[in-house]
Structures are given as structure tokens and as C-alpha cells.
């Protein structure tokens, strides 16, 4: 059980790190496109790693209920498909409505 707890804590910590990197990127970066570049990848990876840690916890502590593990795996799969799709849709709208990318020397938008 100590090994399972260690794996769970490491995966939760790495996932939380990526979630925080996504939030700070959303706050700090100078442009709409760069903000989506930060959040679109970091959020997907952070959510996937965090739920993977919870799957490891569930697999070792409640071995009788495999159905919930499968449910969480489907949740990871859905996030990995859906989140880049939403990011692509918003970025395509921004490109079509004429949002110009930030260049070096301009002020932050």
C-alpha cells in the first residue's frame, strides 16, 4: 500500500504542477494565441495525470469495482479528445475574425 500511495502522490503532484502552469500561463502571457498555447496543452496533461493517479489509488484500495476504473479511463480519453478540439475551435474563430498575433516590442493585449 505504501507503493500505491507513493505512485498516487507523485502523479497528483505532477498533475497539479501542470494545472498551475496552465493557470499562470493564462495570466502572464501577452497574447490570445500564446495564452491558448499554454492552456490547451497544460490543462489536458494535468487533468490526465491527476485522474491517472486517482485510478492507481482506486485500483489498489477498492479492487472489487473495476467499472469505476473503466469510467475514469473513459473520462481521460474524452478529455484528451475534447479539450484540443475546443481549443482549436476558439483559435480558428480568433484567426477568422482578425485577431493579430503579438510581436516583440508591442504592448500587451
Amino acid at each position, binding site marked *: 500500500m505504501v507503493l500505491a*500511495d507513493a505512485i*498516487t*502522490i507523485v502523479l*497528483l503532484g505532477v*498533475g*497539479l504542477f501542470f*494545472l*498551475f502552469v*496552465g*493557470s*499562470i500561463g*493564462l*495570466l502572464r502571457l501577452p497574447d*490570445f494565441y500564446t*495564452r*491558448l498555447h499554454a*492552456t490547451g496543452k497544460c*490543462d*489536458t496533461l*494535468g*487533468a490526465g495525470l*491527476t*485522474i491517472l493517479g*486517482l485510478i492507481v*489509488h*482506486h485500483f489498489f484500495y477498492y479492487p472489487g*469495482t473495476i467499472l*469505476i476504473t473503466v*469510467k*475514469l479511463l*473513459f*473520462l481521460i480519453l*474524452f*478529455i484528451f479528445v*475534447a*479539450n484540443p*478540439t*475546443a*481549443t482549436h*475551435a*476558439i483559435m*480558428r*474563430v*480568433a484567426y*477568422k*475574425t482578425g*485577431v493579430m498575433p503579438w510581436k516583440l516590442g508591442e504592448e500587451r*493585449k
Partner: protein
Amino acid sequence: MFLATGLLITIAVTLSLYRVVVGPGVLNRTAAVNVIGTKTIVLLVVMGYYFERPYFFDIALLYAMINLIGTLVFAKYLERGELWS
């Protein structure tokens, strides 16, 4: 362990909320709402383990679908100016 994870995710959501309130334009706000939705899914799963109620995972699946549909509908509305065309 799960309570600390939930509280840290709440802090990350609060940080992202700045971009919803201040962020210039509709597109920044929509992107920030999408980010908050993804963090809310993780928060729902973690709280399901903290309160020991596995029904929260169904709610998390439902919330993931609603988050995707909401973002896509808003993107389509911003691109075309109308929904039914």
C-alpha cells in the same frame, strides 16, 4: 491528500478567474471559461474520492460533455453571428 489536492485546484481556478473578469474581449473570456471547466472536472473526481461517493464520476463525465458542447456552440456563434443557419 485529496483535500489538499482539491484546495490547490480551487486556488488554480481562482487564478484563472482573473482572466474571466478582466480579460480583454469575448475570446479571452471564453478560453478562460473552458480552462475553468476542465479544472472543475478534476475537482469533481477528487471530491468524489474525498467524500467517498462514486456518483460524482458520472457528474464529471456529464460536465465534460457539457463543457465541450458549450465551448463549440459559443465558437460557432462568435464566428457566424447566429446559431441556426
